[in-house]
């Protein structure tokens, strides 16, 4: 797996697959879900993210919206990565993901398929695309912790 994730062809396929068949790509609008509408970061991408966070664990994450390949695929991969993780684990994954996008050192084992977006750090105009869904989840995690206080 680790070797496969170094092959650009495989990484490209991962992005295309998550763009054409995004995972968890329907909001439940269910009870106990927090929601974030990420429409003001750019005037093209318009993404909604919802998450159910219980007892410090991310039970469910879904998203919906109109967006480019990078925002759709990066959010889709995120929904898989953080599911069933504790809030602290999810934060650690996020921290490493943002580090990767900013071109800083990161732990690739934590990011799994999300390493496909490492190249985005070289395309400054797409950094917003690669982080829009992740910033949505970041808001929800903060909101859930506020509720717990």
């Amino acid at each position, binding site marked *: 797996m680790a070797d496969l994730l170094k092959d*650009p062809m495989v*990484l*490209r396929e991962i*992005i*295309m697959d998550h*763009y*054409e068949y995004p995972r968890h790509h329907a909001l439940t609008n269910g009870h106990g879900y927090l929601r974030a509408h990420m429409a003001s970061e750019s*005037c*093209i991408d318009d993404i909604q993210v919802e998450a159910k966070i219980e007892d410090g664990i991310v039970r469910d994450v879904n998203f919906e919206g*109109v*967006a*480019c*390949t*990078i925002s759709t695929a990066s959010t889709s991969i995120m929904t898989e990565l953080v599911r069933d993780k504790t809030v602290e684990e999810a934060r650690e994954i996020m921290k490493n993901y943002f580090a990767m996008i900013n071109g800083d050192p990161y732990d690739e084992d934590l990011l799994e398929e999300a390493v*496909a*977006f490492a*190249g*985005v750090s*070289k*395309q400054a*105009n*797409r950094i917003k*695309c690669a982080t829009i869904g992740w910033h949505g989840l970041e808001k929800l995690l903060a909101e859930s912790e506020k509720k717990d206080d």
Partner: protein
Amino acid sequence: MLQGITMNGKPLVYLDNGATTFKPQPVIDAVNYFYNNINSNIHRGDYEIAFKADQAYDHCRKTVAEFINCDEREVVFTYGATSALNTVAYGYARKNLKEGDVILLTRAEHASNALPWFRVAEETGAKIEYIELTPTGKMTLWNLRKAIHEGVRIVAIAAVTNVLGVKTPVREICRMAHKVGAVVMVDGAQSVPHTRTDVKDMDCDFLAFSGHKMCGPGGTGILYGKYELLEKMDPMLLGGGANARFDSKQNVILKEAPIMFEAGTPNIEGVLGLDAAIQYLMKLGMDNIESHEQELRDYLFAELAKLDNVTVYNPDGDSAIAAINVKGVFSQDAACYLASQGVAVRSGNHCAKMLVDVIGTNDTIRCSMYFYNDKADVDALIRALRTCTLENCVGVFF
């Protein structure tokens, strides 16, 4: 102008002229001349370089007046088309409109010619109405006639729309609007750089345009207004340079138009550059520019029509502006791939966010050309579009 500039290791093919344009050397020289030789504030200094700066600044008003055929007192320097449009919305419409009055727009308007009017409507109780457009964004005289009625007080419209490059029948609009006593605000941001503009012939009441979209420096723009209307307007900004006197009892006497609208130190070097840009365009000849762009337009649309993988939203567009999408590829992904091939275009909704109601898509790739583009640029675009697949778009990141 674009000689020697490369992007991603390829010669730059710049097709984002609807956003901004490159600057010819005389424009850059004019800005440098100000900084190197006559750096000073205008209308204040009792010394030689300040006097020279005054003269150079005021000269641009004459140049603009000649360029659009008006009196130089009718030329207001602004920071761009947006500030010119806001000046009229704030200074004229907000003051003169009342509840139930109608402001007439189209759904193809740029944010800068929509949002100021939305606010006027909110503050005065006026209503916004729209002239219906065809699915390719054209305005028929029939739809225009249907939209204009006695309640219309303002018609605010782009002479050339910024996504579809459609020419609107401005002269007809002015004639019909004036019959019901309405005032016409023309957004010339996409028309003035590309075609001969004659405000007397058009008979518009106000015209706004930007300097940077016509080879001039950023932060420059023009508001033209019929003098009797300018006289009735409030300035949006108050401050130094625009008042004649004021005292501690709050008695204020403003200067006369156009100076009353130019509070604060203006973009002097920009205005000098704009003067050079307009002279450069006039020397090329606006008719020559227009006919060159028409030739490019015909070639561009003929070549685009040969591509199976491209949807063209404005095949009957009037300008060298194409609004397209690559089938199955999000506009921003396609634009990034084109950039990797050296071709600069714009993706998204181009600030015309109501246009989705007309063309049925939220975002497009806009390829917009200027006089310095040529057929080889179209060829480069077409070559890049041919290989613009989802795989190649994602491949840009590896």
